[in-house]
């Protein structure tokens, strides 16, 4: 059983790692895009904005189980296999990106307009403003959002068992739920709690560090 825990742990780490990576790599640009095309911002564009928003909403509207199933062909096409943790991470990626993009968007909304204007008044290009003003200023909120995202993805990853994804959550479901083995359930839940505590406290620390409003 210890072996299985180790393996499950590795599988979870793998799935979360991939999903987190893409959530950041795609979710951040998408969130920025949603923000900078919104009303009053430099790339204001109602049509493009609502297309992006709607696409996100469409993906967001699919319950994770359905998303998992719908994306099997994609996983197959991309990876050559439709089962296993890597295949499961395809759907986690798709769940994570729009979720995180929305949180990035809200974090950006909290950036002081005056600071953006100050950058504009220097003649800064939109890219420069995004890179040097929006992202740093929203970083603290974005990290807090990432914490929420990763923990949610951890929860979703438990369902990856539907397509043989494995992982800690799956272990809990297979043994604790399907086999009524309370001890496994408890053990996995304890592991999950520790992992979540870890994610949360690392997230809190980084978020606080990124916030320069209350430095001393």
């Amino acid at each position, binding site marked *: 059983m210890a072996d299985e825990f180790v393996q499950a742990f590795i599988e979870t780490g793998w799935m979360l790692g991939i999903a987190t990576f893409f959530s950041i790599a795609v979710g951040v640009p998408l969130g920025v895009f949603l923000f900078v095309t919104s009303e009053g911002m430099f790339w204001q564009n109602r049509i493009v904005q609502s297309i992006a928003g709607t696409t996100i909403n469409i993906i967001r509207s699919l319950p994770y189980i359905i998303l998992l*199933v719908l994306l*099997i062909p994609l996983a*197959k096409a991309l990876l050559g*296999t*439709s*089962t*296993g943790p890597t295949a499961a991470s395809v759907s986690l990626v798709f769940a994570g990106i729009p979720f995180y993009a929305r949180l990035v968007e809200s974090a950006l909304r909290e950036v002081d307009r005056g600071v953006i204007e100050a950058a504009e008044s220097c003649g800064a290009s939109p890219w420069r403003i995004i890179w040097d003003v929006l992202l740093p200023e929203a970083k603290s909120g974005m990290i807090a959002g990432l914490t929420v995202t990763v923990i949610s993805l951890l929860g979703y990853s438990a369902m990856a*068992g*539907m*397509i*043989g994804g*494995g992982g800690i959550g*799956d272990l809990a*479901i*297979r*043994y604790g*739920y*399907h*086999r*009524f*083995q309370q001890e496994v359930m408890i053990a996995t839940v304890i592991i999950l709690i520790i992992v979540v505590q870890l994610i949360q406290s690392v997230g809190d620390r980084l978020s606080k560090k990124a916030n320069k409003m209350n430095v001393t």
Partner: protein
Amino acid sequence: DGEAKGETNQTITIGATAGPYSDQLKEGIAPILKEKGIKLNIIEFHDYIQPNNALEEGDIDANLFQNRLYLSNFNEHQGTKLTALFAVPTAPIAMYSKRHQSLDDLEPGMTISLPNDTVNLARSLNMLESYGWLTVDPNVNPITASEKDVIDNPYHLKLNPLEAAATPRSLEDADFAFVNGNYAIASGLKLTEAVDVEQTSEDFLIYLTVREGEEDEPFVQALKEAYESEEFYTYTLEHSQGYVLPPYQQEQEAKK
């Protein structure tokens, strides 16, 4: 698809649903195959569709979770070409209750939990119909019948389809609950305490399934030999009490 199968037949990848069938593979079959130098790689699914898709796609070599009716229905709808090879020891579905001792306790308005997956829901409805408690539309495929297809419910029974593993957990709540054998055993219910146990027909036995055309592959033979072995029969007697035995094991039983 040769890769998954393993060129040297050293590894067999097999998909199974979490529970008795993956357990019997892991604890009963894998050790036997290991002696022959074959590694059995078990992937656990908790779903009834993905194992077939994975098999069709070649991600796995075989799967073990379904009966023949379900498979033919699946092949028909999904256009897959999968074939059922041989049955394995199967846990029968049964009706349990914490409040009632027999079918005679029936009263109007009782609640009954049933597994919500296609096959087991149909099986449960089938049993209810056999008690004369309700009537299912004869025009629907008996294998996909759902609670919506009940055309006559004279006792106004409240049918409550739940996730299969949730049915034993609903016993506190419902008057009767249909529980798949595997979940009954796992959750500590005894088949002998069931109000009624399904007279499992051959159609409802769980079959080892592979892709069409691979019936004669060496790995299939290896699996077949393992299942038919004496060792596995002993395992079954020890670990799978109350299971419905497949024909080859019934023979072994007869021999004893």
